[in-house]
């Protein structure tokens, strides 16, 4: 009895058009998130026990060093900035039913061009203008990079999973080539771009080490959320995502919208690269690839492409990565354990969402 709607492999089921959530709804959501995380911690704790590490001590450090110590929370918040931009870009793409899996390539190219341009520009113009221009350049480069998959999808119907994956392999190599051959800092033996002086980077918030990139990232994801849920443009994109044939039937310019989706999504990924470089790193080394996309993609799905929920999940990921690193060191667990922890958290959260959904269904019946 299944009705064959929405032929695109899009996450239609997730897009029941965000209605106004009631307070109880939010509370339940929160519970449905914290509960599973607790379960995941118990499971991961068993692994820790198996290798002879006290899980309570481990989690104590994760919480302390990732969340509750002033230093830890600052680090966590700083790490969020690029992740938020990436998440924002993925939300646009996924809501519109386009699998932009090329975020890492777009991110790196944005990072490299920002790193190449910012140190030059700050010398010839006011810092704020220079940084603005660097952001712009990073964005434009990422957008241009996404044009190939966008146009192929829009006008040739070539599946974008393949093209974006390949463009990300290409982009990673190209970023390296650029660092090594085009933008290399002549002053160092290590192949890397010139370094943007610390004082020219994005200002830090108040007296902390938190980058103001965090605010930009928050702004980006909230704007994206509002545009996707509250505006005509966002609705058009969601229609393209949920039922492309309905979009054609309704007179939407699907090819144009497709290109726009890719441009926005890639542009935000490029900005993610720029905000990481201009806000924190200062330069790009050859072979640098943090591959943030791999963790952000599932987070965006778990957030059901809701911007606010995505902020929460990105925060969680940051806490785990900052606190996990610290805890691993203190307890002499290899740092790789953090990967296992993140994996278990993702799986248990996905399971919890499923059981929550089931429960609701049976309650209504």
């Amino acid at each position, binding site marked *: 009895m299944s009705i064959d709607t929405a032929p695109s492999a899009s996450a239609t089921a997730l897009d029941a058009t965000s209605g106004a959530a009631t307070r109880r709804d939010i509370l339940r959501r929160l519970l449905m998130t914290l509960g599973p995380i607790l379960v995941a911690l118990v499971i991961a704790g068993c692994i820790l026990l198996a290798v002879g590490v006290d899980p309570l001590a481990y989690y104590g450090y994760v919480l302390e*060093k990732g969340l509750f110590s002033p*230093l*830890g929370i600052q*680090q966590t918040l*700083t*790490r969020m900035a690029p992740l938020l931009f990436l998440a924002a870009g993925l939300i646009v793409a996924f809501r519109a039913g386009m699998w932009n899996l090329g975020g890492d390539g777009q991110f790196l190219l944005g990072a490299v061009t920002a790193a190449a341009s910012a140190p030059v520009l700050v010398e010839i113009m006011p810092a704020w203008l220079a940084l603005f221009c660097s952001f712009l350049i990073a964005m434009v480069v990422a957008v241009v990079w996404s044009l190939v998959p966008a146009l192929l999808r829009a006008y040739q119907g070539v599946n974008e999973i393949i093209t974006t994956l390949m463009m990300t392999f290409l982009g990673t*190599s190209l970023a*390296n080539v650029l660092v*090594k051959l085009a933008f290399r800092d002549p*002053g*160092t*033996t*290590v*192949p*890397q771009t010139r*370094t943007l002086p*610390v004082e020219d980077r994005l200002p830090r918030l108040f007296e902390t*080490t938190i980058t103001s990139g965090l605010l930009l990232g928050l702004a980006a994801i909230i704007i994206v959320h509002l545009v996707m849920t509250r505006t005509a443009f966002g609705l058009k994109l969601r229609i393209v995502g949920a039922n492309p044939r309905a979009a054609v039937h309704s007179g939407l310019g699907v090819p144009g919208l497709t290109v726009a989706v890719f441009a926005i999504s890639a542009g935000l990924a490029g900005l993610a690269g720029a905000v990481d470089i201009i806000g*924190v*790193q*200062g*330069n790009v*080394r050859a*072979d*640098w*690839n*943090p591959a943030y996309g791999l963790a952000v993609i599932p987070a965006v799905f778990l957030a059901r492409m809701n911007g606010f929920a995505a902020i929460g999940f990105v925060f969680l990921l940051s806490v785990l990565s*900052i606190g996990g*690193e*610290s805890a*691993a*060191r203190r307890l002499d667990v*290899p*740092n*790789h354990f953090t990967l296992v922890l993140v994996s278990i958290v993702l799986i248990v959260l996905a399971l919890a969402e499923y059981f929550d959904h089931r429960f609701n269904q049976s309650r209504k019946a």
Partner: protein
Amino acid sequence: KSIAILTPEEGTDYGWNQQGIDAAKAAGKAAGVEVVVAQGLGYGDVRPTLRELASDGASLLIAHASGYNTSAPEIAKELKVPVAIVDTPNGLEKGLVADYTLSGHQGAYLAGRLAAKMSRSKSVGIVVSGEPPSWNSQSAAFAQGVKAENPDVKITYAVIGPAAYSDAAGGKRVTESVIASGADIIFGQGNGSSFGMLQAVETTKAADGGKVYFIDVIGDKSPIDKGFLLSSVVWNIEPVYAAMIADLKADTFGTKHYTIGLKDDSVKLLKTAAIPDNVWAEIQTLREDVISGKIKVDPVYDAAAVRALMTSVAQ
């Protein structure tokens, strides 16, 4: 008080990370300071770890990876904690930033001489998994050593691929190709992938049907050797760290470059049973010449220059 060392990978690689960690521990023990080890941090952003180690009271942060040489000085200035970084000779800052540009080029030169002496096929190979400066200088010096010993020995230089540090299969594949091109001694550099090179050497016969030998760098892999390890350019970083601690105490931190070399045995060639005693004796003589300056070995850090050198020496 305490010092901390940060490494990108686990300190169990019989190489760069392990040598750094072991040396820091030894130097700390000698000086009576506690050593905090933060390993397996990857090549991403280590600012959080640097800040945390500093806030935990470390009075010296050793950022033991060229990838950390932007972030560590920044944290040093931000928190007024001394850091030591690698591969950045012009980054010194008194009391804050010290550089130790480690280069085993002197040792690699000797390794080249050794290889040229011992190669039956008069053909040797250099396999690297990437081209960071410290490896480049060794590749170049090795080639110079080979040519100085015997200009007729052919050198084959091959890079596995981008970001191939963990590409053990690539290491094996490329090494096998290089052996097929005639080499019977492989000078190999590459973290995880160097185990693939070692495996290739162990499982592939040279053109004459005999053994292929492997010359390693930085660490000492003899505990896991199966009889194919000819030598290694072993680095001992302990004197560097010891000097840093001393300078820290003497308030002269950040005023000098720390290096390693043949002179104090902080770079030395590993003697294995595979090296005949007469050859070893010749190498020891050459070692004296390098120390005394009779033989000059200049480090070449730039990848393009290394490649240029290879082509020019190959013809």
